[in-house]
């Protein structure tokens, strides 16, 4: 049984103007997992990360990291954390290698040229190490803020919208990097707008909306429990779905030769088998079958009520 590396209890954050950004958040994050925080803009994802990392004051509640309180033992907790912020905030006229070394020292670590070289190579930044930040492209700058966050070998990595506005190649690179870091034992907390990102790399999903956690669940269990699949069946002739007497959740293509059925768990209620049997019984020939699974996105939209 793995231990909880982050424990959040009754965490609330209210800004001076009265805006409630976080309300009674309870969340435990297990050592070594990748958890994705999903939520629409303004849901409170960044505020939650900021509260854990010390960027914003906590109004009430407790947060502990590796058993240490983030306020009373802030030096111990922050030394364990690496943060990749949403906004790219870099000193424009400094060299890549200097800003990465600066971060390592800031987090209380002595220089380690081998480690810095390893990170820069891993992020494809080694040949750009002597370039000034201002000379880099947006994607490269995003790699630099990741290198900075990894410079002090953190046990926990927060990635706040790491792939926002980056091209597909870089996004796949990031996913690979995140998987490698997890394999090395790093706990990763990821906020994202891209549901396929959470689906691809996360072990658990937490959906946040209006400053509250709506649900937190193991990804595959969540998809199994709430996810809906769609089966599209192409037939040899036109069909009127009224023949099924509303027994299935069906829709029809405009040319009436294809039907689609939404279902949740085929094993549990045999829906799929029943539908195919009915089609045969009605004397239709099946020309083609395909399945579609936009499960997590649908769950997300259901949960946030959009």
């Amino acid at each position, binding site marked *: 049984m793995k231990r909880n590396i982050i424990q959040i209890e009754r965490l609330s954050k209210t800004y001076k103007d009265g805006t409630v950004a976080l309300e009674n958040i309870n969340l435990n994050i297990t050592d070594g997992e990748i958890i994705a925080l999903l939520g629409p803009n303004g849901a409170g994802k960044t505020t939650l990360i900021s509260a854990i990392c010390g960027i914003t004051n906590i109004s009430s509640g407790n947060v502990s990291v590796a058993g240490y309180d983030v306020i009373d033992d*802030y030096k*111990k907790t922050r030394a364990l954390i690496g943060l990749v912020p949403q*906004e790219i905030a870099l*000193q424009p006229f400094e060299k890549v290698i*200097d800003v990465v070394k600066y971060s390592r020292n800031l987090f209380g670590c002595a220089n380690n040229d081998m480690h810095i070289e390893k990170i820069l190579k891993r992020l494809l930044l080694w040949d750009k190490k002597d370039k000034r930040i201002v000379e880099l492209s947006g994607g490269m700058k995003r790699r630099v803020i990741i290198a*900075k966050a990894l410079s002090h070998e953190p046990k926990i990595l927060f990635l706040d919208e790491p792939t926002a506005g980056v091209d597909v190649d870089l996004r796949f690179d990031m996913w690979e990097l995140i998987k490698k870091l997890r394999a090395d034992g790093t706990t990763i907390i990821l906020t994202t707008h891209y549901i396929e990102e959470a689906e691809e790399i996360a072990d658990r999903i937490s959906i946040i909306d209006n400053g509250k956690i709506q649900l937190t669940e193991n990804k595959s269990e969540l998809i199994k429990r709430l996810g809906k699949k769609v089966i599209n069946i192409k037939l040899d002739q036109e069909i009127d779905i009224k023949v099924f007497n509303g027994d299935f959740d069906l829709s029809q293509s405009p040319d009436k030769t294809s039907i689609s059925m939404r279902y949740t768990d085929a094993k549990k209620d045999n829906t799929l088998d029943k539908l195919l049997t009915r089609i045969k019984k009605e004397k239709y020939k099946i020309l083609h079958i395909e399945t579609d699974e936009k499960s997590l996105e649908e769950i997300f939209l259901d949960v946030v009520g959009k």
Partner: protein
Amino acid sequence: MNFYAIKAIYVFEMSRTLRTLIQSIASPVISTVLYFIVFGSAIGSRMEDISSVSYGSFIVPGLILLTVCLQSISNASFSIYFPKFIGSINELLSAPVSYLELVIGFISAAVTKSMTIGLIILITASFLVDIEIKHPIWMVCILFLSCVSFSLMGFIVGIWARSFEQITIIPDLIITPLVFLGGSFYSITLLPDFWQKVTLFNPVVYLISGFRWAFFGNADVYIGYSILAILAFTFACVFIIWLIFKTGYRIKS
């Protein structure tokens, strides 16, 4: 203590200074040399001695302090305002660095730069006018304390400022007039009685008087009052910075 962080902040700030060497050091030195040429050599040669000190030599302490105070404020305010402006302050806030360590890192860099400029101006002035320093240790101490206190004030200005324009408001509209009216180019004893008394409300008078005492051995106000005033100003700045970090004023939501 996170000494790695203090050193990192210090080195980072100093490298910025070295990268902009001309702007950082050469321009205040050139402008001060111009003061010496105009007030010391050109106009000063026609002025009477003040307390047996030639006018050219008399203005040296005031000119050094004028530059040092303004440089301390502008260095320290820019060093903390710029991370706020570009957003990299979040890295400082999320690092295992105490507020004390942050202040030591930034202030020691600002003080190093201002002290260097002050000493360069002193050396430059020694080529142009006769300078004798009666209390060299006190001279260095008062210069150092001035750099520290005005750098602390600059740090406060940098946190308070919401725009680059606001960074320049305090030095331009408050500090420059106070230094000019604080006796940098004259002895306040030359003023009419009423204005002498008004001038004593200007804290910079104590600073310049104390610094001039270290050079020439005579002062407009008692040296003890000068030392007390500088220490009081320094502690007031430290207290305000402590309050800022305690409340997160304009740095932490």
